């Protein structure tokens, strides 16, 4: 029998899920659900939208209003849903490839508009579903099935990208720092504007194996040992930052939200009637 949390928020008839043994996607999915539970939101007022990829399969397991859309377009669908029903809490579940390669354009424009959508990117540094091709977040030098001699691209810092594009809440956490992730999802949902949460997760089957990163546990230990909280990170020298990455709430700001601005235009016309 599953836990109360799982029984309440998951379509348990679809479990166990299709993710590989040790894949971190389940940890992120549970963290999202836990955050929703902590906020005490009404299930019917939540809409989870996902694209295509391993992570995007999450929407099928969740017992909310859910839409499993096309590759890279989760944010485009989510924008439409939010504009039609601004009272819904719209949450986008996407992967690094889905969000920043084919969906990169939607990502920057959703951030630019500051539309009230919470986007959680499951970043496993690879395209897992299709067999481990390198993605925009595969670190330079690391291998993928399409980069057998090492990736020569510079990888995206997704949080910096979201911040520069205009997101008003930007944070990063890992599947090891799960409680931090839960808190960030809560704060992201509470933020009236575009929230971007990067959840660093693991793909032991493809990315891990291809790059000799060890088993699922080894990959989690790596995340544990190299994640530095933002307060501590700011005090490190450039040399000390080598190989480390920052976690925590990276950026917060306040500016007009898109659906509210849109409503303002509608109201300005209805007043005249």
């Amino acid at each position, binding site marked *: 029998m599953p836990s*109360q949390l*799982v029984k309440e928020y998951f379509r348990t008839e679809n*479990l166990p899920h299709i993710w590989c*043994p*040790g894949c971190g996607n*389940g*940890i992120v999915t549970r963290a999202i659900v836990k955050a929703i539970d902590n906020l005490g939101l009404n299930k019917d007022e939540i809409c989870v939208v996902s694209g295509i990829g391993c992570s995007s399969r999450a929407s099928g397991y969740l017992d909310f209003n859910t839409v499993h859309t096309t590759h890279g377009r989760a944010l485009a669908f989510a924008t439409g849903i939010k504009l039609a029903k601004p009272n819904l809490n719209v949450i986008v579940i996407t992967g690094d490839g889905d969000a920043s390669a084919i969906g990169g354009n939607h990502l920057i424009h959703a951030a630019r508009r500051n539309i009230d959508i919470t986007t959680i990117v499951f970043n496993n540094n690879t395209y897992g579903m299709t067999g481990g091709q390198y993605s925009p977040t595969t670190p330079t030098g690391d291998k993928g099935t399409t980069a057998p001699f090492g990736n020569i691209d510079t990888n995206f810092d997704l949080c910096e990208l979201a911040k520069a594009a205009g997101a008003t809440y930007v944070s990063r956490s890992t*599947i090891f720092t799960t409680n931090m992730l839960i808190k960030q999802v809560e704060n992201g949902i509470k933020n009236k504007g575009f929230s971007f949460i990067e959840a660093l997760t693991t793909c032991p089957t493809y990315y891990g194996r291809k790059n000799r990163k060890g088993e699922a*546990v080894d990959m989690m230990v790596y995340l544990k040992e190299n994640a530095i909280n933002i307060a501590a990170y700011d005090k490190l020298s450039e040399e000390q930052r080598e190989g480390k990455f920052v976690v925590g709430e990276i950026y917060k700001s306040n500016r007009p939200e898109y659906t509210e601005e849109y409503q303002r235009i509608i109201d300005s016309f209805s007043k005249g009637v």
Partner: protein
Amino acid sequence: MSTKTQASLIVEKNWCKGCGICVAFCPKNVLEIKDGKVNIKDLESCIECGQCELRCPDFAIYLGGK
């Protein structure tokens, strides 16, 4: 006398894929992998911290009794 019951830590064996994450991050060495699935080897030592539930990717282990 034992204060722990089977209800305080529950395993859904059908969902367990034997990745070993719960075993590795349990601070009290309560768990093991046996026949490819998680097994509670020392329930008495469990402090019900919930680290296993927090990080199980398959929702296969959780604290009960709440």
